[in-house]
């Protein structure tokens, strides 16, 4: 791989593993915990957020020469909320059931710190191509983490995955996992597991 290709690859994968917004940076927690009751909802939320992220990164990056740094935050907010409004109405028109179950968290994508954070930290300083790449990487990282949590909660809490039954006969699903406390518990144990794995790996290296 040439240096340039490696650099582009790094920009794309940065958000998926090294700086995963949810599991590493602990941002964008509210929608993650709230809508991860099933894999479908979680994936839908992830895709909606990723679309807004790519769109806002591209727009901010294209306009960065015209945005005065003193008022950049309000301008970012207007850009982001425009995309959120589009997604909100598109989902209402074409995916009404998903829109219904995500509820208030669709318009609240606007205050997801991941999006404003990437506009400020990356898109405002880089060209449109890199900004889109970064948006894709961060978006994928978000989709992966939220879907992982959604999948775990759906399997344990409801005994299904994407609506298909996977329950073991004789074992009742733990309803608690799809209720609000289950979200905190699932993410807590998931992060503890990740910590343990990372520690072990570091131990093996040194």
């Amino acid at each position, binding site marked *: 791989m040439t240096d340039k290709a490696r650099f582009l690859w790094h920009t794309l994968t940065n958000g998926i593993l090294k700086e995963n917004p949810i599991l590493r940076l602990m941002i964008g927690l509210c929608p993650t*915990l709230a809508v991860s009751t099933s894999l479908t909802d979680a994936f839908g939320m992830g895709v909606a957020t990723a679309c807004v992220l790519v769109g806002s990164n591209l727009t901010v990056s294209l306009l960065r020469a015209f945005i005065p740094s003193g008022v950049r935050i309000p301008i970012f907010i207007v850009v982001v*909320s425009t995309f*959120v*409004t589009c997604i909100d109405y598109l989902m209402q028109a074409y995916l009404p059931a998903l829109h219904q179950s995500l509820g208030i968290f669709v318009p609240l994508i606007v*205050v997801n710190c991941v999006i404003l954070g990437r506009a400020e930290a990356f898109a405002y300083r880089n060209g449109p191509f890199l900004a889109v790449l970064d948006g894709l990487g961060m978006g994928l990282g978000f989709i992966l983490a939220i879907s992982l949590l959604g999948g775990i909660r759906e399997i344990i809490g409801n005994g299904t995955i994407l609506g298909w039954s996977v329950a073991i006969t004789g074992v009742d699903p733990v309803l608690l996992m799809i209720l*609000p406390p289950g979200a905190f*518990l699932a993410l*807590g144990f998931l992060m*503890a*597991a990740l910590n343990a794995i990372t520690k072990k790996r570091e131990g093996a290296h040194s």
Partner: protein
Amino acid sequence: MTPSLVAILFSAMIANNVLLIRFLGLCPFFGVSRRVDTAFSMGMAVLFVMTMATSASWLIYYYLLAPMGLEFLRTVVFILVIAALVQMVEMFLKKVFPALYQAFGVYLPLITTNCAILGTAFLAINNHYDFLQAIVFTVGVSLGFVLALVMFAGMRQRLEYAPIPEAFKGYPLAFILAGLMSLSFMGFAGMFGLH
């Protein structure tokens, strides 16, 4: 049936606690909950801003956006109103009540991106509350915020001295703690005849 004001207040405060049941405003919940006194200042700042923000957005929605058929602009308008409001409150406090400004400190600007504020403004509109109900609802939500945040901070302060397995240190245990609190708050569901 219109729910009574008392029911709205307590349902918003406990059974539908904004942090533990609705999952709004979690960043400050995990970010500033290491000490009880900072948690309390943050809670007070939220109470203050949230009440103003919901009143402002309620009035704008029903007297400006709805008559002109511009409901689709609400996301853009609400977030800008809240951002502007926080700026104004900050300048006003700095000038008129410097002591209070010192107490709120860095928490005021942070509140702009607190999804609990925007979320409450949306919920008040979505639930079709009238103005008085919206205010009572907001006060309930923010009291619930203070209650959960201060209790959580108290427990985390205690945990600092507890022997914890290495992998659970920091955030993982905080999440599990929040899960247990959420469980106990859920026990109040249905008590006030509201969901």
